């Protein structure tokens, strides 16, 4: 039992900027807990001599030479922006009024 609490769900939702109504926190806590429990079955195996892995391809040191390539134009870069001003991305107010 992984023990994901409703507080954990509320915290994660806040970090991910997802709005979850309070009456559904328990629902998601149960679901996330079940997922973690499923994954946790791995820990029943002895992995003490298996190095942790973050990438399926056993390669290292893949580099790019420091030579400039092609960038987008400002018009291309901004073409998908919901709002544009002065060739810049216009974004909503960052801090709420205090």
């Amino acid at each position, binding site marked *: 039992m992984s023990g994901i609490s409703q507080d954990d769900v509320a915290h994660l939702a806040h*970090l991910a900027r997802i709005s979850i109504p309070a009456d559904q926190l328990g629902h998601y806590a149960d679901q996330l807990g079940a997922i973690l429990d499923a994954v946790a079955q791995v820990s029943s195996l002895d992995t003490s001599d298996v190095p942790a892995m973050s990438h399926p391809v056993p390669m290292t040191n893949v580099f790019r030479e420091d030579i400039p*390539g092609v960038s987008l134009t*400002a018009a291309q*870069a901004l073409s998908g922006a919901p709002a544009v001003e002065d060739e810049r*991305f*216009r*974004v909503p107010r960052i*801090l709420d009024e205090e």
Partner: protein
Amino acid sequence: MAEAIMNYDEAISKFDPVLGLEVHVELGTNTKMFCGCSTVFGAPPNTHVCPVCLGLPGALPTLNKIGVESAIRIGLALNCEIAQWCRFARKNYFYPDMPKNFQTSQYDEPIAFEGYLDVEIDTDEGRKTFRVPIERAHMEEDTGKNSHVGGATGRIHGADYSLVDYNRAGIPLIEIVTKPITGTGKYAPEVAKAYVAALRDILRGLGVSDVKMEQGSLRCDVNLSLRETPESKLGIRSETKNVNSLRSVERAVRYEVTRHAARLTAGDSVVQETRHWHEDTGISTSGRPKSDAEDYRYFPEPDLLPIAPSREWVEELRATIPENPAVRRARLVADWGLSELDMNTVINSGALDLIVEAVDAGVDAAAARKWWTGELSRIANDRGIELEELPVTPVHLKRLEELITAGSLNDKLARQALEGVIAGEGDIDAIVAARGLAVVSDDGPLLAAIDEALAADPAVAETIKSGKLAAAGSVVGAVMKATRGQADAARVRELLFEKLGVSE
């Protein structure tokens, strides 16, 4: 609003300061850390961007080799160990300066760790070395630039909305973090400043960055806490951001010591928070409360492969590390027999490398120093150019010194020869020939000029005869003038005294 502070000396008598410094340096690579966009400063907004640095779906990062090499070289110059194997990690946060919604950084596997940097400062007991322990140097990327619109001040508070330029997003950064620096006592501000200055000199020497604090390519955060005694456990620290000049580093440490001390003495605790430094008023103000590291939900970057620098590669890079600037300075002070003050003059004139180059080419150190910090500095200053821009080479200075030693040029003629070099008239011998520069060594014309000078000022001969030898200066000066500087002043003096029957 300004907070209460305590007098610095009183604060230090009551508390022991502990420093921590985080320095971000923007690398001078041609391209960004994870894509081929240019890093050139000052381009029109959003023209150095691509799907990778804009975080468009499906874009994949590719790692800049020079960025990694620079990180390893910085680590080596700071006496760090270099990781055998390390990865990047995603630092997740939502803020419009990072369109990916995470910063690609390194978390628990920095490329360099466990180093130190020795810095020297002046103390009441003379010069003293403090060892600054370095915890890590890791690779990450810079963010985009926000400008805030609306509101009274153009600051983020009260703004109506913000505009973002992503040209800077993805430019390689190296973050260098010290361990808690203890044992500085009252010299905490000076040690902090000396550390950042020494770090800047090392980074400049490595050629990895232009390290311009005023342009933000070197940025410093100052962490400070106080404890009652050196035996007490560490106090709660504040982290002051935006400390972007050497002077500010010193001032920010001093200010935080006085602010913490006032709070602690009043029975308040220090709040663990980020603070903003204000250069104009010399105080810091509260920013946001420090969030827990866990909130960033770091995890290994799946789109980049691990880095496993071979020991051969590390040793190859180690061979490119120049001598530590502070060590080099100490060596040159000893080799050249200079005082610390003389050395300061040399360094402030920006002539150090040029003098070293001349000395390596066989020019006497004192002569090289005299030319570069004297006449050549004056000429460069008059023309508003850097010393390096003068077309004067070690070969020129060497030949000039040979001619002076041989007695065929004096100081004044040598200066004229240098003017010729700067005017592009060829090598020293060609200039000397073309301009007819030669010390008049034939006594005949000198004696004639001495007679003329004595005739013009009849009283001076008697003055000299009466024992006031200093009066000879005016006669020698007149002879130098008459010969347009081509006389050997020492010989003129000799001849004059012989003539008047006085001895020195």
